[in-house]
């Protein structure tokens, strides 16, 4: 790995998770406040996360296995907020 590729790859990996977290936060905030636009912006953040994973797969010297893992992770990110949300709602409805 070259020195330039090192920093680029690391920053892309950080951005991947940060964008994933922004998606989770905005998705939940949009649902809490019933603002679909916020959920939509959150989904855009997921697209950024997925874009980072694609860039990591095509433009970095990471090994094939890691590239595959990052792509699969980014795809899994998309379902985590809705599933967590549904679980939380069910838990709180049962409680009330």
């Amino acid at each position, binding site marked *: 790995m070259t020195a330039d590729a090192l920093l680029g790859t690391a920053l892309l990996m950080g951005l991947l998770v940060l964008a994933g977290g922004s998606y989770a936060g905005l998705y939940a905030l949009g649902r809490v406040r019933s603002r679909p636009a916020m959920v939509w912006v959150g989904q855009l953040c997921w697209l950024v996360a997925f874009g980072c994973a694609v860039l990591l797969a095509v433009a970095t010297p990471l090994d094939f296995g890691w590239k595959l893992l990052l792509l699969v992770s980014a795809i899994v990110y998309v379902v985590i907020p809705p599933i*967590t949300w549904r679980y939380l709602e069910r*838990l709180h409805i049962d409680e009330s």
Partner: protein
Amino acid sequence: MYRSQKLAIRYCIAAMTFFGVMVLFGVLSALYYIYPTMLFETFHFSTSKILHIDTLIIWLLMGFLGAIYWYLPKELGREIVGIRLAEITFWVFVVSVLIVAGVFIFVQYGQANEFSMWFINQGRKYVEAPRWAAIGITAVLLVFSYNVIATAVKAEKITGIVWVLMIDLVPLVGVYLDAFDNNTNMSVDLYWWWWLVHMWVESTWEVLIGVIMAWVLMDIMGTSRRIVESWLYIEVMLVLGAGILGLGHHYFWIGTPQYWLSIGGFFSALEPLPLLGMVVHAVYDAGMHRMRTHNRPAYIWITTEAFLNFIGAGVWGFMMTLPQINLFSHGTQWTVSHGHFAFYGAYVCGMISVFYVVKQRTSGVNFLDGQRWKWAYGLLNLGMVGMVMALLLSGMAQAFYERAIGGSTLMAFTAAAENPWFLSGMYARIGFGAIFAAGYLMLAYDLLVKPEKVQMPAVQNIQPEAAE
């Protein structure tokens, strides 16, 4: 108030005091990077760093014990069994730490022999405390375990939270015994040492703080037991599922077999997934409660914990977790940046929320809010975020110039230490460290003095426990 809760207050005061010692030696250690000859042959950088990182472990451990002694009698509806013993071990703990700190400051180091290991410094990072003190800590943890288990048995009531706590006591005591290892093979030594650092601090403590946060959530937000217990079980499952083998990312480059690169990288890459769920949960809870709480600082700090844990452990950790990146970043200020952020997010924010819970109960107010805690909150967070950004800059400069370009030679190390990017990060770290120290002082002041008089908003509908 139970005697156990009075003991908890003492633990919280001790924890807060050692938090201050940690900050003091953190600022001093940072200065050495700018003035390498500072206090030459008077007070070594290594000793300053030992005091910084060891007091980190000690104050958090004291805070955990304090929080559990605070909530356990309430949870089980009775006084702690063996409270007298617990009170004695508190003083043993505090006096031992003071003696060890005194030895570190005034003696500093000794010859490489048995005497030094027993009475000066064991020489292993994070567990430098001499062997007699390590035995003392083991005794404290054993008494604490006895207090928890005997009280639960006597109360004939074991809740889900107490079950998790009791099971966690096994690794809390068991894994700490690794502090006594004395292997002369560096690879074998580091292999087991990481059990102590990762398994004890990152896994066992994660469960411990999960238990404490479950109680705090029920206390300050009125969250139901069923909900907090459900999440606690999920957390335990995740610790067992991904956290344990996530240990592998520490096994890079210490002489362990190559398969650890794959195991460590794979399980570390999974770690952000549950953190995403945690962000959703934090927003959900904050939204559903619409900020209704009787303890605003505790509530804000516990919510902050979820987000900073995600960024510190998730984003910062993920940047350098794959072996191909870690080859260059390992052991640079980049790692230091991740360590600061992850510890702060995972534990410090949670402990500060406990301090405010204790403050509210001891000061007898029904609603805790004001301006002072906001200053402390702002300064501490600004200081920490600034520090970790500065350390990241320096760490990336090291990885880039020293490792990737310079090939990790001694000459490259020296050149990188004088690199303007590295140095500017070090200067910025001191500035933000000073801001963090100011935040600590404001926090200590706010916790010590009487609460500010504020009107409880009309929407507050969560009733606090009766103040005494």
